């Protein structure tokens, strides 16, 4: 692709002028301040925009715009930019002038909008470059330094292959390595492994420090508030556990005593020992009740209360299953596939649009799409109705169950109030426990209830006392067997509970020790904060890992680039260099650091430093041209040389022009110069010349028209 023309409607000192170019060598010649650099700058300004608008905006006008026309491979690309508003119009056309791709929108130099991204992607695909700096680094040759050294040349090449305008990948690598070496002496790159760095010092300091504890997560340790909170919570748990444990112990002890008593008592003995109503002292019965774990003054309606508690408990547990079933049923209610509906609709709209646009059976396609949308909408509507119905049913069912649950809870709370009023425990668990005690001590309770109340005649007892309803019809033997089993189970549970409590106590001690260590290390002051050291060590390890990964990745990428591109680069540059030097030097070789060397006499490789300035210039030009070719993969843009040889004497200039001429053979090269001597060369070599008027650039017409129209016009 070549740059066919630059049309400057209003750009710098140019108004309504068109500069045309050809394939091969182009010379834009004019005195200083004639506008050569302005023309050169028009290319990146139109392609990417500029942040130096004031420089190019004509004096007294509020307009600044220019267009570029590229041509090649049977295509033309026109890019027009209004530099004031950064509005860009890009059109790519084929050889029949039919548009292939186009863009119209705002695309400022440093814009990040989607429109900018779209434009840059298009530029990248059409011209192979989407970055202004990179464009300048690749296609622009400014004034070269007086003297190149081999190292400078290598650095320049490394910068170019890095893919940036100014940064040498080796510098990036060096900085990362420096950072790594500053952190640790342990490195695989063999530099100064003797001196300890921050990581080793931190580790040593940590080793000297008294170990804090075995808990590895120092973030937790660091936070003493967190430890205090844990201690508080664990202490509360332990207090509650101890109470439960003591209760359990008492209960087990009671059951055990009770079993012993029952085993020892024969019916006769019981008959003999049973206190006759009014005969046994109140104190004895009360003592027995207390020993059995029963309340000292059990109310007469205790059994009724316990029966009601059992009933409530059973009703509550019966509710669990329907709740779970309802939850599952709610989860299984299918949703409505709105996304599918919308996607299908969008697809059908696209298909219909395409059918209308292409006029491909538009009516049948539209009808089909309409039917599909209707059917799909109907199906979704039906699904929605069914789903809503199911949800409503579930909601009603849940409401009914909630009502039932609430009624049960109300009964439970009434029962609790009654129990509390009678001095009985009110929690469901305590009531279950009491239920068991009552069952196993019914005889004792009956005896207690039969005894006359203080001041009550004994005769009244028969009237007052009614036989207790028996909950179990089993005999004493079967009741005893059940209790033996229960007792063993209870003892096992109690042992487990005790072990769990021991674990919690151990954890509590450990936490207390941690807190104490933390406080003492803080009190110890400098160097004593093991937590901070641990944290720093962790940070250093993370950073070192990251740096190593980054260094290895970049080093691998350089190796990979060398493997995949260096041969071709050497080949292309060598071919060009051989042409420039008329076959004297046939081959160029870049080593892994991009340091060039040249094959001399077909047997010796010599570093670039050992050649003359002219040869090094030629080498540089050959390498840059080859690099550009590889980078752009055949989409080569013109090379722009803005007086690059201004420092050269006549002899070197002639050599440099030779190589420039040769470099242009495969593409397009635009040389901007004020040197009139170049005109003679241009005439001899039949370059395309664009003269800029020496006095009246504003009114002159630049090169327009035929192949030779501009040549030597000036001279």
């Amino acid at each position, binding site marked *: 692709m070549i740059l066919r023309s630059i049309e400057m409607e209003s750009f710098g000192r140019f108004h309504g002028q068109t500069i045309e170019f050809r394939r091969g060598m182009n010379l834009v010649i004019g005195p200083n301040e004639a506008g050569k650099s302005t023309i050169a700058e028009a290319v990146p300004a139109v392609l990417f925009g500029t942040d130096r608008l004031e420089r190019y905006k004509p004096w007294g006008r509020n307009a600044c715009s220019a267009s570029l026309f590229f041509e090649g491979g049977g295509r033309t690309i026109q890019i027009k930019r209004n530099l004031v508003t950064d509005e860009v119009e890009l059109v790519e056309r084929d050889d029949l002038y039919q548009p292939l791709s186009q863009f119209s929108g705002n695309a400022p130099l440093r814009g990040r909008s989607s429109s900018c991204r779209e434009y840059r992607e298009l530029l990248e695909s059409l011209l192979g470059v*989407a970055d202004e700096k990179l464009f300048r680094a690749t296609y622009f040759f400014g004034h070269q330094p007086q003297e190149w050294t081999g190292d400078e040349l290598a650095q320049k090449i490394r910068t170019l292959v890095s893919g940036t305008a*100014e*940064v040498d990948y080796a510098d990036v690598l060096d900085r990362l390595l420096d950072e790594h070496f500053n952190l640790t002496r342990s490195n695989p790159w063999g530099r100064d492994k003797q001196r300890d760095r921050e990581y080793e010092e931190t580790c040593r300091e940590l080793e000297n420090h008294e170990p804090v504890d075995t808990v590895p997560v120092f973030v937790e340790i660091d936070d003493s508030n967190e430890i205090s909170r844990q201690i508080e919570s664990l202490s509360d748990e332990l207090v509650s556990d101890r109470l439960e444990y003591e209760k359990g112990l008492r209960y087990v002890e009671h059951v055990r005593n009770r079993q012993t008593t029952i085993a020892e008592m024969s019916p006769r003995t019981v008959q003999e020992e049973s206190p006759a109503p009014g005969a046994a002292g109140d104190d004895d019965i009360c003592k027995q009740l207390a020993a059995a774990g029963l309340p000292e003054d059990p109310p007469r309606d205790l059994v009724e209360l316990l029966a009601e508690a059992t009933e409530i408990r059973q009703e509550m547990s019966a509710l669990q299953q329907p709740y779970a079933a309802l939850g599952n049923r709610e989860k299984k209610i299918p949703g409505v596939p709105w996304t599918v509906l919308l996607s299908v609709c969008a697809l059908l709209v696209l298909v219909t649009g395409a059918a209308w646009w292409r006029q491909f059976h538009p009516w049948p396609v539209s009808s089909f799409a309409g039917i599909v949308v209707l059917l799909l909408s109907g199906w979704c509507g039906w699904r929605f109705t069914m789903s809503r119905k199911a949800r409503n049913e579930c909601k009603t069912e849940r409401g009914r169950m909630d009502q039932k649950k609430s009624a049960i809870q109300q009964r439970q709370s009434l029962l609790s109030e009654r129990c509390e009023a009678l001095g009985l425990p009110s929690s469901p668990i305590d009531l279950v426990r009491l239920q068991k005690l009552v069952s196993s001590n019914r005889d004792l309770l009956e005896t207690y209830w039969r005894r006359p109340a203080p001041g009550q005649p004994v005769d009244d007892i028969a009237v007052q006392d009614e036989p207790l309803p028996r909950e179990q019809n089993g005999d004493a033997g079967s009741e005893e067997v059940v209790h033996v089993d229960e007792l063993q189970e209870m003892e096992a549970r109690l042992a487990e509970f005790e072990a769990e409590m021991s674990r919690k106590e151990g954890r509590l001690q450990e936490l207390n020790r941690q807190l104490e260590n933390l406080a003492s290390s803080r009190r110890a002051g400098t160097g004593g904060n093991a937590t901070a050291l641990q944290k720093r060590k962790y940070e250093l390890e993370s950073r070192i890992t990251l740096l190593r990964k980054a260094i290895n990745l970049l080093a691998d990428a350089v190796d990979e680039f060398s493997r995949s591109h260096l041969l071709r680069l050497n080949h292309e540059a060598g071919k060009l260099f051989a042409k420039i030097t008329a076959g004297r030097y046939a081959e160029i070789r870049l080593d892994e650091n991009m340091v060039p060397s040249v094959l001399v006499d077909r047997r010796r490789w010599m570093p670039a430093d050992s050649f003359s300035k002219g040869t090094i210039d030629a080498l540089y030009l050959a390498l840059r041209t080859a690099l550009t070719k590889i980078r752009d993969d055949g989409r080569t843009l013109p090379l722009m040389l803005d007086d690059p040889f201004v420092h050269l004497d006549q002899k070197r200039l002639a050599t440099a022009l030779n190589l420039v001429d040769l470099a242009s053979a495969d593409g397009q090269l635009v040389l901007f110069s004020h040197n009139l001597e170049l005109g003679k060369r241009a005439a001899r070599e039949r370059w395309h010349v664009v003269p800029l008027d020496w006095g009246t650039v504003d009114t002159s017409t630049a090169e327009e028209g035929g192949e030779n129209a501009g040549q030597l016009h000036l001279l």
Partner: protein
Amino acid sequence: MTGLLGSDQIKSLAGEESVRGVLVRMVLEQAEGADSDEVKLLEQALQLLLSRFQAMEEDAS
């Protein structure tokens, strides 16, 4: 792929015929079969490298 590795900038860089382009392509390839920790490390390393390139470019210009 999400985050940095799925960004437009990375996709664009991956098409470059340069060391930077090769670097991005390598990271994307390695991230394909890696576990989440490794992907995170690769992403951080690439971010570190690209930000270094950018910072040094800004310093130089």
